């Protein structure tokens, strides 16, 4: 069975994906994770998760191109620039 391993580098920071490993059961997964992602002191904690327990979501279709729903679809900077041009005012100087 494949397990995904997440590691916390130091207290207070988020867990990040470290890699995966193959193990026959949880006891082996725990030991192998310890050896492969922790024995050099690179982690203060690990999450070891069976890959089949991970819910994967990857269907992000946007048939109607409603880009205003997307975080990258609506540039405030560009809109502001256009508005300023229409109003005939320049952007305020950075140091004012």
């Amino acid at each position, binding site marked *: 069975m494949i397990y995904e391993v997440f590691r916390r580098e130091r207290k207070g920071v988020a867990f990040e994906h470290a890699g995966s*490993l*193959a*193990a*026959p*059961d949880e*006891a*082996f997964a725990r*030991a*192998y994770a*310890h*050896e*492969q992602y922790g*024995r050099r002191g690179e982690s203060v904690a690990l999450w070891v998760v069976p890959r089949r327990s991970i819910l994967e979501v990857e269907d992000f279709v946007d048939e109607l191109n409603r880009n205003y729903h997307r975080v990258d679809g609506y540039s405030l900077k560009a809109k502001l620039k256009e508005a300023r041009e229409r109003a005939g005012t320049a952007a305020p100087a950075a140091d004012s």
Partner: protein
Amino acid sequence: MNERVRQLLLQTADDELVLGWRDSEWTGIAPVLEEDVAFSSIAQNEIGHARALYQLLSEDADALAFDRAPAEYRCSPLVELRFVPDWARTIARRVLYEAADELRLAALKESADAAVAGLAAKIDREEAYHRMHAEMWRERLRDEPRYRDAVEELWPYARGLVDEEQRAELASRLELEEVEPVERGTHAGDWPALWDEMTVVRRSVPGAAW
């Protein structure tokens, strides 16, 4: 440090060095990759423990590790046996050795010598992971005939590895009957070849500083 403690430390160091050497024979050829990494790491830890113990005994740990004649080593025949490619016996040895080593370390941790007690405690913290590794394999192979035969075959060696006063406790922890032990002081037939290979670089250029 009294002579009894010196002897015990030397036996322990020799056991750890030689078992580390034997287990390192699995590097690259263990049954699965993850185990290859874990087993090699354990082997390296054992050699590290030997190094620390030799350093307590001598200014020149290398000389103690590599410059003695084969008959002068105090390791148990258990750690000298060559098992590659027999994984069942290799695991049986690890399980038996870890149980024996745990008892031995517990006694060393109680030593009146602070350096000895401190090092034993430090080694024991690392051995906890070795025991976890041994335990998970024991669980997995407990009903496997090859493993059970191997435990039966090697148990007399493990019994001889610890001091006499610890033998009853070892048998009870492992749930095995008391048997005639294979005592330390004799060497296994596999030992001369191991010693020869282990010391070949040191002997190739005597007295060299690397």
